[in-house]
């Protein structure tokens, strides 16, 4: 019994790959999930919102300023300044909608002209002719509109006391009857105080907010005291919103595993002496690796195609109207993951080592890159970290194709990053493969 225990521990101690899988991988994963979902290091994700104030009334300004100071939101009223445009103009309803469609933000709020005349509504079926706030959203992000709605409700309750009182008076007189002169005087005195208070808050907020056009704010509710009309501007025509997302997300993760495993054939060939024999023929190392890269790219692309065709057949994924975008993104992604696999294989000394390294890296990349859960659930820091993964660029590209219906030309950032990363990874792999060339 003791001898078996001793033997098992001695074997484990000398098997670095098994040690890594046993201890480093679970701790690494625990840390990633803790950072994403835990409360440490200010990890609460902030929802990006664009606000277009077409009303410019006291009420709308108060509401906007309240939202600007809400910690859970990242509110913009105009694009970020750049060298070309140091003072960019405020968003319009059109540019805000375009930003939602492009995926720059998940939600845009349009406060229409005339909203301030009648900002609060009570009861169902009332106020059919009031100007409702428009909430434009990307339905792939189910969380953001809910958050914005809640914050809008909160902002109305806290930032518009005078407006609420005034509207209360109107509704009282409408449904109960006219106030007596004495009641009206007391009401108006109190209302004057609330208006001064509301104005003071607005001025203070405006001063603070002007320093940073992109600061935090809060939202409201769909069915609360502020009437909101919601409209999905992205994915309205998609019958299964998340199918295309997960086809890409899960697909990329498994492509990475397949590519690593397939590239591991190099290690088998090195072990068996076949690699030596091939290199003693006319085939050089660069040709050999390029051939394997091409094979692994085609294999990955075929795998991805099979997954999307399955998605079409079973889950009604709209594949056939997106063929050009799918081809571009599929081949770019396949190339990048194949090069990633080649690099890992050329780095590892044994199959076991390759298995441990690839499992650790791929699961980490997949979790922070959005293959396991959408990146909008993550903190800003994690979302930025995710940009260093192949998963996030591939998923973004496929989302553009299948969700946002964007043209192939709009894919250039994702394609450039994936192809560039693939080329760099391949060159690195080629560099490490020198150990097999000669002894």
């Amino acid at each position: 019994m003791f001898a078996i225990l001793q033997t098992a521990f001695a074997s484990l101690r000398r098997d670095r790959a098994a040690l890594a899988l046993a201890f480093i991988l679970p701790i690494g994963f625990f840390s990633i999930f803790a950072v994403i979902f835990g409360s440490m290091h200010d990890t609460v994700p902030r929802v990006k919102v664009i606000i277009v104030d077409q009303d410019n009334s006291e009420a709308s300004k108060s509401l906007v300023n309240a939202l600007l100071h809400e910690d859970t939101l990242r509110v913009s009223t105009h694009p970020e300044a750049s060298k070309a445009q140091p003072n960019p103009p405020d968003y319009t309803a059109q540019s805000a909608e375009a930003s939602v469609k492009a995926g720059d933000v998940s939600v845009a709020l349009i406060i229409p002209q005339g909203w301030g005349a009648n900002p609060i509504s009570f009861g169902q079926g009332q106020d059919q002719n009031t100007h409702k706030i428009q909430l434009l959203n990307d339905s792939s992000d189910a969380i953001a509109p809910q958050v914005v709605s809640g914050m809008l409700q909160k902002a109305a309750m806290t930032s518009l006391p005078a407006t609420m009182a005034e509207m209360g008076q109107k509704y009282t007189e409408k449904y109960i009857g006219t106030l007596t002169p004495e009641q009206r005087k007391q009401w108006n005195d109190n209302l004057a105080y609330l208006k001064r208070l509301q104005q003071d808050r607005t001025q203070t907020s405006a001063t603070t907010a002007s320093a940073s056009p992109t600061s935090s704010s809060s939202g409201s509710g769909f069915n609360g005291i502020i009437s909101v009309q919601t409209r999905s501007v992205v994915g309205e025509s998609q019958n299964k919103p998340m199918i295309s997302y997960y086809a890409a997300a899960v697909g990329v993760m498994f492509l990475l595993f397949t590519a690593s495993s397939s590239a591991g054939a190099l290690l088998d060939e090195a072990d068996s002496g076949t690699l030596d024999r091939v290199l003693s023929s006319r085939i050089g190392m660069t040709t050999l690796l390029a051939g394997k890269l091409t094979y692994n790219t085609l294999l990955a692309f075929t795998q991805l195609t099979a997954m999307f065709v399955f998605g079409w057949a079973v889950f009604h994924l709209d594949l056939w109207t997106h063929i050009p975008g799918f081809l571009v993104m599929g081949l770019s992604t396949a190339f990048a993951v194949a090069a990633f696999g080649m690099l890992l294989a050329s780095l590892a000394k044994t199959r076991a080592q390759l298995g441990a390294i690839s499992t650790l890296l791929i699961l980490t990349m997949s979790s922070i890159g959005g293959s396991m859960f959408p990146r909008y659930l993550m903190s800003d820091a994690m979302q930025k970290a995710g940009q260093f993964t192949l998963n996030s660029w591939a998923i973004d590209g496929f989302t553009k194709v299948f969700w946002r219906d964007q043209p192939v030309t709009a894919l250039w950032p994702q394609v450039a990053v994936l192809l560039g990363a693939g080329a760099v990874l391949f060159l690195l792999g080629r560099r490490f493969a020198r150990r097999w060339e000669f002894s």
Partner: protein
Amino acid sequence: MSATTVKLASAAAITGATLPLEIAGLVKRFGSLTAVDGISLTLAPGECLGVLGPNGAGKSTLIRSIVGRVIPNRGTVSIFGSAAQSTAARQALGWIPQELAIYPRLTCAENLIAFGRYHGLSGSKLKEQSTWCLEWAALTDRAKTVAGELSGGMKRRLNMAVGIIHQPKVVLMDEPTVGVDPQSRNRIFEMIEALRAQGASLIYTTHYMEEAERLCDRIAIVDHGRIIAEGTYAELVRSSFGSRSQVIARVTGSPETIAAWTARHNGRIVEGAAEFTIEQSTEISTLLADAASSAIELEDLALRRPNLESVFLHLTGRELRD
């Protein structure tokens, strides 16, 4: 075997000033270990040179230097006048490594096609050459069998066939019979003899002396990275033993008595048997008389002409298998 005659006709035509293989002052070190220590060799057209030595003697490093897989620290290797790593040298060389360097999931024919393409063959030439190689290795009926499912001997033969798919003029065989049964070994010998008959020049490394005796025109004995003897089988034996023979006696008795008896007749104990070198067969009676008078009982007695094993033992004081 008519196909054999056709396919290797070009190898037989190798002539000219440049030798198939010339190695001069080759040195290869791996850290503090000197695997090859100043080896110089030549290979004549159509010749089979045996490189004999125990494990770790430097045979495989020498072969890998010739095929350009090892960069020597010093010295040169040229194949028909071209440097070992040149395209011309690679085309002229066929390498049959000790390992089964084939694709186990491909069939025999697919393996041949793959390696043929690596060597630049294509089209009908590749098909023709592949067919010939299957025939040469007696694997025609196994052409569609996956390599991983072949018997050990068949895998060895496929490993050899893959090495000559491109009709090399010089073939390097690194212990091609390791781990095969006697029947398969004989089949491999026949393949090598067929190849030789067509004029290919061969370098054959082994630590089986009987293989070297049977197949090689000339033998180089390698130990600790150096060639310690080189010549034909007869030359090596003559230079070490002259006209002498060996007597191997298995005896019983006290170890001290046996050791004293052996020493009196300039013999040695090898693997439990007493070995003596004699000039005349009449010396045997003297040995036996002395044994009897020393109360040593004789179990078995053999008279043997010295062989490569004896030569190696004589030169190094060690068994070839050590």
